[in-house]
């Protein structure tokens, strides 16, 4: 017991020391101020029955780490540049392969018009571009129906350009913010979808393609109320090799899949009044793909929504809860249809995931927080597009319900 207390005290002192050394966040370069910021988070998940998020959670898993470091500078009155490196390990995903999270040159002509180019975080819904920043929200995990952390690569950033701005409406009608973008998405081969495909013997070498879309949000005249809509279109191609489904013993054959129609719509709103905040979002993802060079076709209709509420009890303590609902409906046509019967009944646990969540967050200081979160899930929505539950880490099949305890701490400077 004494040993455990000593360990906790040591951990606390380490974090405090880290903060003292990390407070120097600026330096001068060519007479310009360069800011340096970073974060690190560590989680632990324990679940009954199913293993979740590619971790061995039924035994308790701490393979839930991510960290980032960024530098940015205002080069001229209108031009700002910066970049952030990001790395993570989430069970079988990430595996500590670092990536360039964003690297942008941002030129703001006016408040109503600016351009940013490079690798840009995608503005989509309330939290897409800030989903890694655990310290910004009450919850340890965002609602997985709308922000699946295992599929982070699908929407997180694009290599391309955005135009953006804010327009104050006359007659005190609030403020409209817009973003329009186009670019190239490139998924890590250590992300969720390639891992999912590996359960069918596929080895993905590349996965990505064109993304374009926009976001429009309205800060309404009602104080604290914001509503918005996002749209994303994609033309994605995945290439690699796979076991021939018609002759499994014949070895690997070339595998490819490409989008015929791939779009996502998201509608959202948030309302803040005093210490209380309520959010709600709805996302629909339509995915029509050609598989195995067009010999088969897959139609997936994925829908998710959530309602969340969070309350700050005092400066150091917040509580929150959300209900998150995910459904997937899928039909496969062509040669592969013999292997994949239509899965359109979203009442089945295999085709949904309903998650009830409660959370407590303690801010030990301005830079360091701890979270405790309980998830009570019905369903495991396991395919043909993943949503947290994977057969590779659940080889004996899935139980219909999963309860999970998530502990998470994060530090930022």
């Amino acid at each position: 017991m004494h040993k455990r207390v000593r360990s906790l005290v040591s951990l606390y002192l380490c974090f405090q020391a880290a903060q003292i050394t990390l407070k120097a966040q600026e330096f001068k370069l060519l007479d310009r101020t360069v800011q340096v910021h970073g974060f690190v988070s560590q989680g632990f998940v324990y679940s009954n029955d199913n293993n979740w998020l590619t971790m061995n959670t039924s035994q308790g898993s701490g393979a839930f780490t991510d960290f980032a470091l960024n530098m940015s500078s205002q080069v001229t009155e209108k031009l700002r540049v910066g970049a952030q490196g990001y790395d993570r390990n989430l069970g079988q995903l990430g595996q500590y392969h670092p990536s360039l999270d964003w690297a942008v040159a941002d030129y703001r002509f006016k408040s109503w018009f600016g351009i940013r180019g490079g690798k840009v975080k995608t503005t989509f819904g309330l939290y897409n571009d800030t989903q890694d920043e655990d310290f910004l929200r009450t919850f340890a995990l965002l609602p997985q129906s709308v922000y699946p952390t295992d599929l982070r690569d699908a929407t997180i950033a694009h290599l391309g350009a955005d135009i953006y701005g804010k327009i104050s409406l006359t007659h005190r009608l609030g403020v409209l913010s817009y973003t329009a973008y186009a670019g190239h998405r490139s998924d890590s081969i250590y992300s969720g979808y390639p891992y999912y495909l590996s359960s069918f013997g596929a080895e993905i070498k590349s996965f990505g393609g064109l993304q374009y879309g926009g976001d429009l949000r309205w800060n309404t005249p009602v104080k604290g109320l914001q509503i918005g809509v996002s749209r994303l279109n994609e033309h994605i191609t995945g290439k690699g090799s796979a076991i021939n489904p018609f002759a499994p013993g014949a070895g690997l054959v070339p595998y490819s899949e490409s989008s015929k129609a791939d779009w996502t719509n998201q509608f959202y709103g948030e309302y803040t009044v005093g210490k209380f905040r309520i959010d709600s979002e709805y996302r629909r993802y339509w995915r029509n793909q050609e598989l195995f060079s067009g010999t088969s076709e897959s139609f997936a209709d994925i829908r998710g929504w959530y309602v969340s509420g969070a309350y700050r009890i005092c400066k150091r303590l917040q509580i929150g809860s959300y209900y998150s609902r995910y459904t997937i409906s899928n039909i496969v046509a062509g040669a592969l249809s013999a292997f994949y019967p239509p899965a359109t009944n979203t009442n089945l646990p295999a085709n949904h995931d309903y998650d009830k969540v409660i959370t407590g967050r303690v801010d030990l200081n301005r830079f360091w927080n701890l979270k405790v979160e309980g998830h009570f899930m019905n369903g495991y929505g396991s395919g043909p597009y993943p949503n947290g539950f994977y057969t590779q880490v659940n080889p004996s099949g899935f139980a219909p319900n999963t309860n999970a305890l998530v502990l998470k701490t994060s530090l930022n400077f």
Partner: protein
Amino acid sequence: MKNHKLFSLVAVVVIFAPVRVIAADVKVIANGSMKADMISANEVKSVFLEESNSLSDGTHVEPVLEKDGPVHEAFLHEYLAAGTNDDLQSYYRALVFSGRGSMPKQLGSDAEVVAYVARTKGAIGYVSAETGVEDVKTLTILREGNGAQRRLVTRVEPDYPDTLKRLNIGGTVRLQVSIGPKGNVDTVEVLGGNPILGESAAAAVKQWVYTASRSRTIAELSIPFDSHH
């Protein structure tokens, strides 16, 4: 006799001093190189939330905040509607970690803010209304309405009674003004602040002239009276 008059004046000031003084506690200051004497409350919000880094006249600005304390809280409440300081810090961190902005300069006291604003071109900050602000400009804040779209052509400075100045009685006066289509200030109503200073400010503002517009404009102004200046 002189003492009696002074006592009466102080008594009037005390009796009529506004009970709710949060709104009058903060004044917005800017580096002396800034062209504008007056900016709108919306511009203040936009600059401090990093939605804009220039004013409507094109002047580049750089916000500087206080780390915490009552002046900072009053500024948040009055200008940013950003909830708590924690909410504001989260807002800035969201910008920083998504590549959309930088962490603004945050200093520990009024004196540090004044010194930084005085030496930094384009800097704009806020301090307690009672703080002496040598070498910086105190901005008049146009609070509401569509007055921000109307440029001030003629400005008459209000009288600051010597007695009040000597007694360090100052602060910010809030006025509601009605500007006619031709640009004249037709009516002025004192909304808050010291009543004597309010009267003085109203008398001056009545002589202000704005650019012409197709319709009448109703706007709110904050006029600072700095006893240390």
